[in-house]
């Protein structure tokens, strides 16, 4: 099992106490899970602040300025506020479904981080079906949004949940097909193998240079999968008030919010791994390269959000099926022919 090198000393410690075998593995994995959870919370705190600063600069709004240097502590203050908020459950809601929706939403976003390579050797477990596993587990978010929409017993929430389901399944296909081109070139679904297949040639082996169309399709579909503007119809504020999370408050709302930003980081991390060469880069440590590239994609997604207006729902669906899907098949054909021709 490949674990973070930092945990070498934990293994040694456990061995000294006399805990070995499966028990030691379990303790190490739980410690890793706690570490990833802490890391994701920090990343989400930073991303929320960053998004607000970017929106302020792009749209000449007022961004956070008071709490800490340029408002860096604003999200921390928001989190403390959310913990203290009353948890309101509507009388008519389906209480069990209402309760479990935010849990599933967060866990599906969280479990994807098992196979994300933060750097060379910095991966929890290099599953041989890596990329397929991420696609499968993050799709559970859709179920949680449907649960939230249904469980709230609210018309806005129901419409938001239904829209998100239709949108997510429509954009799932181009997303997966755009990644397929990379799998063909790498000859493996493991995230580590995909990154290693892009090393060398001074950076020109990154898949973005070989299949730019695939990257564009992935980026558009990923924006839709992460429910970001211009594809944020499930939570369109102006018409659905807040969509599926309309009845949520306090910590349950915080979990949806956290999962949204974690999902944004996930799709950016996948884009980095699959198209931008992952941790490959000269001079600096591998994790800095990974983080830098990922944050660059996150920045791009944020600029999208504050620059583009929202699509109409019929345009949204037709774009997925009539434009992105044929283009995705074209990309596969192109990769197939060229990979054979160049004997990649």
């Amino acid at each position, binding site marked *: 099992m490949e674990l973070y090198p930092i945990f070498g000393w934990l293994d040694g410690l456990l061995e000294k106490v006399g805990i070995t075998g499966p028990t030691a593995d379990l303790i190490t994995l739980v410690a890793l*899970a706690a570490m990833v959870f802490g890391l994701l919370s920090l990343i989400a705190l930073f991303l929320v602040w960053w998004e607000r600063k970017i929106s302020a600069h792009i749209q000449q709004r007022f961004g956070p300025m008071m709490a800490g240097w340029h408002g860096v502590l604003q999200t921390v203050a928001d989190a403390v506020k959310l913990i203290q908020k009353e948890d309101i459950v509507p009388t008519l809601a389906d209480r069990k479904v209402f309760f479990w929706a935010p849990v599933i939403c967060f*866990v599906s976003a969280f479990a994807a981080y098992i196979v994300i390579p933060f750097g060379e050797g910095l991966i929890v477990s290099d599953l041989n079906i890596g990329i397929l596993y991420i696609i499968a587990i993050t799709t559970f978010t859709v179920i949680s949004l449907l649960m939230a929409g249904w469980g709230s*017993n609210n018309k806005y929430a129901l419409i938001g949940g239904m829209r998100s389901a239709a949108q997510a399944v429509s954009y799932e296909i181009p997303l997966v097909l755009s990644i397929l081109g990379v799998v*063909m070139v790498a000859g493996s679904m493991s995230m580590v193998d995909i990154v290693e297949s892009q090393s060398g040639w001074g950076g020109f082996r990154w898949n973005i240079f070989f299949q730019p169309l695939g990257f564009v399709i992935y980026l558009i579909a990923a924006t839709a999968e992460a429910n970001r503007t211009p594809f944020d119809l499930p939570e369109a504020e102006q018409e659905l008030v807040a969509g599926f999370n309309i009845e949520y408050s306090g910590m349950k709302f915080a979990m949806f919010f956290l999962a949204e930003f974690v999902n944004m980081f996930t799709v950016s991390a996948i884009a980095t791994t699959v198209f931008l060469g992952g941790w490959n880069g000269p001079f600096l440590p591998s994790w800095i390269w990974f983080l830098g590239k990922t944050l660059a994609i996150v920045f791009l997604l944020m600029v999208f959000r504050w620059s583009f207006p929202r699509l109409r*729902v019929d345009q949204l669906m*037709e774009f997925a099926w009539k434009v992105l899907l044929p283009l995705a098949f074209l990309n596969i054909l192109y990769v197939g022919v060229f990979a054979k021709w160049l004997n990649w």
Partner: protein
Amino acid sequence: MATDYSAVLVFIIAGIGFVLGAFLFAKLIRPHRPYKVKNETYECGIPAEGEGWLQFNNRFYIFGLIFVIFDVEVVFLFPWAVAYKSLGLFALVEMIIFIAILLVGLLYAWKKDALKWV
């Protein structure tokens, strides 16, 4: 390599644990003062009209059906993609035929206006 997948189970259970822990922590400090009007379903601030669970346009259902067809196709495509480099030209031609058949299905759905959101 089956043991690698134990990480998935541990992460899912630990993730649920973290979320429930956060809920429990919040429960200890937050106020809890529900009353009838506060717990009503929200609808623009006026009393809610009718049921929240209303009948829905079956568009979603049709998109769901098309999705299942293409998702199953993708499941077939992934093993092909992994082995693509070691397969000959024959594999490419075969897959083009397979995708072409499905694209005819997509064109049919397109012509029948199944891809139209009403």
